[in-house]
């Protein structure tokens, strides 16, 4: 059968096809199949671009660097750049800062980017061209790059037009090399090009080509991401009269392209932002005798990032506060100094900062040979044809719909600094994502909307309650050695990165590991055909996990399963090419189910044991009328599916999503199948042991897993709080010689203390096992620090040695009783 006519017979088949990239799913609304958290962690909520911070930090902690980088790249195409110069709002939001220091998110991102470069960059997989339309992006700054990559991933042909010789916008032209080495930028742009984005540099729209030309060349939509490339001036007396006065952008751009020797000269930089620091520190490197930064307010009000200020001071920059420029002085056509008023701060102005006002008669003069005005920037929108209905705002900004980034011209969208005014790299990228999404909707004839992000965390929900542990410092170049433009900050090495990443408290309900998106059996989201699942009589399809594509697009999954009709399309290989792809799409009715617990009311006796066990206060008891017992009800928006309540419930009224009690027992039977028979021959007995472990805490490489004793069978549970005594007894019935449970250390439970429950379960179970005369060495439950898979393996090896000494556990019969009837 030709691949294009292939129809999945089951969800499992479909899953396989998705895993092998032979098919992809599309919602009727056009969005991809998406995974969404019920609530986001504070770091992710704080990130304008929505980078899955907790997710990739977690992967770094596990040593899965490439996966971490892939995850970052879903929302941030410039990990190496952002890892260096991002203003990291995520760190400001990090809940860990209440305990000690915020997690060093930026440095961690830098680490994986550097790691990839050092290990032969894999880059970004080439996006497949799936749609006929071409989109032009004007400007190759972070906004344009983000939009271009998103559009390429959506299957469009994308060309980026850049006026300058090398792409990157401010990153390429002005941001100094000691903060952002250009080879890093170049590598990231190469990765974006590798994904299928075409770059045409040295083409200035409005000069070499007009906007209409682009339309004429067949670009169905245009993204305007031209930034604010021009500097603003102070508008003070003398400014235009003397040589040696620059705006910051021109100064940096000029010194970046052709650095000059300024030995013997004095530099004055006016301003307190990032660009002022860049001008000042660049000045140090250019040989200026003295570099002074003149700022109207005080250090507390400086918008520059703290480290920049610290480094500037370390490098010899002098900060002059409460100085308000009044007049530029000069002689013979050259600048000689700046006359300033001494300022004082009064009540806050509308920017929220205290307002500086001059103190009468306090003026003083600072000598200077070069003055850089690092005030602000403005745009150059001269290329916009008058005939078109673009709206330009008071700050020379291009006005767009704030939600969709649409301009008044239907096929034109804008993003980045040109819309917002001078902002940040991450802010520009965030807008690029929105613009790309809108272009996609526009081209598909769908209404323009912006995805609602998952709501931020209401309360502090931490998956781990850590011990105090300070941030791992990163070293930097000794100020004495900072002659040239060599990068100042040094990143983490592997060990430091993993230690730092492990400091993340995993705030929020979802681990964001996105394991669910690939091959993990333990996920919070499941896909099933309607009418399947717990309680359903017939199960036409086994419910399966399906792979979730990269895009973080809207598909809310609050509590009830959501029915969706998914279109699937064959893809890849021959079928991907040409019309065959669209020729035979299939439809599949599916149900997307959150992995949360539910109570089977007839079985609930209203004892409330579950309520006491639930770490998330997700359960309440409700009345069901006179003479009837209370009934437990799960509040799905709080439930995280750990299943601790399931263990507590005496009647199995509590069902944990798909991992039913019976399901686990079945798995144990399957894992140990035939184990009892192995004991027929004496002597050469290989102990068969069941290792039950926490799903999250001991990721084991294949190589390490191979060093487990040969008779080990491994069962991973979402949480070891889920370990029911019957799991252990069933294992013995099924022929295990021993059962070892590995939970994570106290305070490190991924959920709310399931490991403590494990210890309680183990203690009473041990009592019962003693009574049936089972040797103590046959059962052990132990907690290990997160990530110490080696320690777990070593302990299991010891445990197995004990089993060998104890000999085979002999039972009267190898026949296991069938499992109890499912409810």
């Amino acid at each position, binding site marked *: 059968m030709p691949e294009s006519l292939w129809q999945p017979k089951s969800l499992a088949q479909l899953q396989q096809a998705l895993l092998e990239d032979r098919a992809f799913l599309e919602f009727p609304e056009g969005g991809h199949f998406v995974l969404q958290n019920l609530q986001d962690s504070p770091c992710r909520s704080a990130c304008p671009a929505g980078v899955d911070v907790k997710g990739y930090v977690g992967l770094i902690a596990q040593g899965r660097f490439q996966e971490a980088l892939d995850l970052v790249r879903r929302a941030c195409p410039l990990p190496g750049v952002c890892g260096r110069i991002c203003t990291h709002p995520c760190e400001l939001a990090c809940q860990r800062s209440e305990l000690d220091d915020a997690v060093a998110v930026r440095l961690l991102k830098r680490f994986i980017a550097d790691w990839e470069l050092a290990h032969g960059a894999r880059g970004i997989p080439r996006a497949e061209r799936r749609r006929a339309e071409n989109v032009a992006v004007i400007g190759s700054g972070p906004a344009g790059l983000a939009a271009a990559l998103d559009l390429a991933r959506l299957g469009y042909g994308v060309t980026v037009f850049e006026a300058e010789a090398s792409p990157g916008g401010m990153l390429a032209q002005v941001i100094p090399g000691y903060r952002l080495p250009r080879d890093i930028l170049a590598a990231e742009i190469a990765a974006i090009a590798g994904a299928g984005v075409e770059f045409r540099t040295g083409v200035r729209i409005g000069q070499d080509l007009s906007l209409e030309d682009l339309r004429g060349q067949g670009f169905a939509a245009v993204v305007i991401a031209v930034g604010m490339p021009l500097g603003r001036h102070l508008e003070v007396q003398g400014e235009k009269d003397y040589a040696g006065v620059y705006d910051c952008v021109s100064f940096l751009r000029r010194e970046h392209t052709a650095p000059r020797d300024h030995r013997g000269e004095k530099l004055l930089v006016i301003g307190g932002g990032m660009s002022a620091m860049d001008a000042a520190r660049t000045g140090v490197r250019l040989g200026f005798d003295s570099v002074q930064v003149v700022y109207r307010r005080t250090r507390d009000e400086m918008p520059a990032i703290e480290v920049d200020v610290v480094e500037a001071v370390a490098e010899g920059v002098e900060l002059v506060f409460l100085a308000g420029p009044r007049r530029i002085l000069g002689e013979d056509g050259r600048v000689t100094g700046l006359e300033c008023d001494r300022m004082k701060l009064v009540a806050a102005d509308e920017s929220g900062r205290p307002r500086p006002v001059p103190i009468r008669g306090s003026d003083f003069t600072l000598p200077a040979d070069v003055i850089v005005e690092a005030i602000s920037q403005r745009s150059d929108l001269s290329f916009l044809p008058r005939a078109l209905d673009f709206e330009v705002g008071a700050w020379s900004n291009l006005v767009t719909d704030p939600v969709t980034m649409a301009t008044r011209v239907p096929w034109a969208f804008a993003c980045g600094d040109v819309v917002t005014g001078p902002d940040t790299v991450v802010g520009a990228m965030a807008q690029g994502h929105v613009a790309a999404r809108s272009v996609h909707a526009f081209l598909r004839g769908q209404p323009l909307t912006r995805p609602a992000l998952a709501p931020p965390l209401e309360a502090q929900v931490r998956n781990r309650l850590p011990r105090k542990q300070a941030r791992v410092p990163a070293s930097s170049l000794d100020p004495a050695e900072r002659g040239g433009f060599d990068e100042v900050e040094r990143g983490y090495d592997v060990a430091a990165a993993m230690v730092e990443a492990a400091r993340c408290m995993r705030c929020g309900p979802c681990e964001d590991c996105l394991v669910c998106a690939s091959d993990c059996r333990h996920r919070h989201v499941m896909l099933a055909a309607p009418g399947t699942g717990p309680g359903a009589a017939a199960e036409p399809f086994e419910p399966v996990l399906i792979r979730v594509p990269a895009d973080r697009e809207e598909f809310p999954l609050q509590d009830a399963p959501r029915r969706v009709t998914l279109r699937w399309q064959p893809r890849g290989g021959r079928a991907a090419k040409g019309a065959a792809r669209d020729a035979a799409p299939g439809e599949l009715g599916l149900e997307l189910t959150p992995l949360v617990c539910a109570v089977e009311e007839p079985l609930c006796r*209203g004892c409330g044991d579950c309520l006491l066990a639930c770490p998330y206060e997700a359960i309440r008891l409700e009345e069901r009328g006179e003479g009837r017992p209370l009934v437990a009800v799960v509040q799905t928006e709080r439930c995280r599916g750990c299943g601790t309540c399931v263990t507590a419930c005496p009647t199995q009224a509590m069902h944990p999503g798909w991992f039913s009690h019976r399901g686990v027992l079945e798995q144990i039977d399957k894992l140990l199948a035939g184990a009892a028979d192995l004991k027929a021959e004496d002597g050469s007995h290989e102990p068969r042991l069941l290792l039950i472990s926490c799903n999250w805490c001991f990721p084991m490489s294949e190589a390490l897993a191979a060093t487990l004793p040969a008779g080990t069978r491994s069962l991973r549970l979402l949480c070891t709080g889920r370990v*029911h005594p019957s799991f252990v007894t069933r294992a013995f*019935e099924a022929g295990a010689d021993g059962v070892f449970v590995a939970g994570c250390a106290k305070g490190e439970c991924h959920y709310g203390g399931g490991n403590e429950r494990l210890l309680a379960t183990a203690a009473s179970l041990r009592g019962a096992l003693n009574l049936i*005369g089972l040797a103590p060495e046959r059962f052990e439950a132990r907690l290990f620090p997160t990530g110490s898979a080696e320690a777990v393996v070593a302990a299991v090896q010891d445990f197995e040695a004990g089993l060998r000494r104890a000999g085979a556990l002999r039972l009267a019969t190898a026949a296991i009783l069938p499992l*109890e*009837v499912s409810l």
Partner: protein
Amino acid sequence: MKLRDIIRETQAYYCLDCGKCTAVCPVAAHSETFSPRLTVLHALLGHNGGRPAGRLLGDCLTCGLCTEVCPSAVRYLSFTQMLRREMAETGSPPACSHGGVLTSLMRLQARKLEGRRGHDWVPAEARWAETGPLLYFTGCLPYYEVCFAELGASPLQTARDVLAVLNGLGATPVLLDDELCCGHDLYWNGDEDDARRLAERGAAAIAAAGAETVVSACPECVHALRDLWPALGVATGFRALHLSEYLAERGAAGELGLAVLPGRATYHDSCRLARQLGVVEAPRASLRTIYGSGFREMERHGREAVCCGTSGWLQCDAVSRRLQAERLREAAATGAATLVTACPKCRIHFLCAQGGESDDEVKGLRIRDYASVVREAMEGGEAFGDTA
């Protein structure tokens, strides 16, 4: 066994479809799906293969109220047991509560070839022996001690009380170091093979100890040792007696020197003791002496008493809870401050249900084992040991 044979063996074909069984069935009173009459009818008419769904099969408490009223003497309990046996062999047996761990432990005992449980719980001052004519069979009490610690019931205190009572009568009972489960639950849940394994090894251990009389405070153990072991083809050379029967045999209550305890008390008959074993009077005789005019009967008592809500650890559910709540209210309605039962399982079930009740009188009930009450009375009326 074929369904035909089950019908023949249990005389189900005599069913008149009169519905008396369903009328008295406590489960049917609260469940929308369960009806003994329909179960028999379906078997006779061959509906759905003649077999009730596993869930319904598990719902029956085997309390035996239905057989008390059946005009045709259909052996409904055996009917249920045989169907369960068939299910255990071929399909899925009915589900058990507590994740099935208690049943699993029973099966492990049945199949495991060696191991001793020890006597850690026995007080130093107690007198006991390794061999002798009288044996005290403790049953599952040590297991309940670990599995139901959170109920605060100390099931093992019951065992200590039994030992004290026997010692008080001058007896030095045998305690088996390798005592196993009696197999009652496994038998009734349909796992006859494992029940037989337990019976065989149990009988051998008792014979090795030389016991002629086996006393237990658990009606299920007594029922197993007296009725089920022989039914499983295991010969027993001893008599099995419930503690209350043993006391009755040892003489009039006065002879035991029982003191009078203050307050009002009522007595809950366990299904096995009252209906299977027909022991109704023996515990009452001692309780009447102990509580005098303070002893009250509940509305439903003796052979008409209603079950404590679950049996054999089979699926406990909302119906169980309602039965328990009802029974506790019935006990409280007598004005009694103490609810005595001669079955440790009934006591555990009631204690569990009591924890969730809001009625003050029900919450105020002291739920005690018969053995503990007798011990207290024998020792002159001071509460002894802990609160059991």
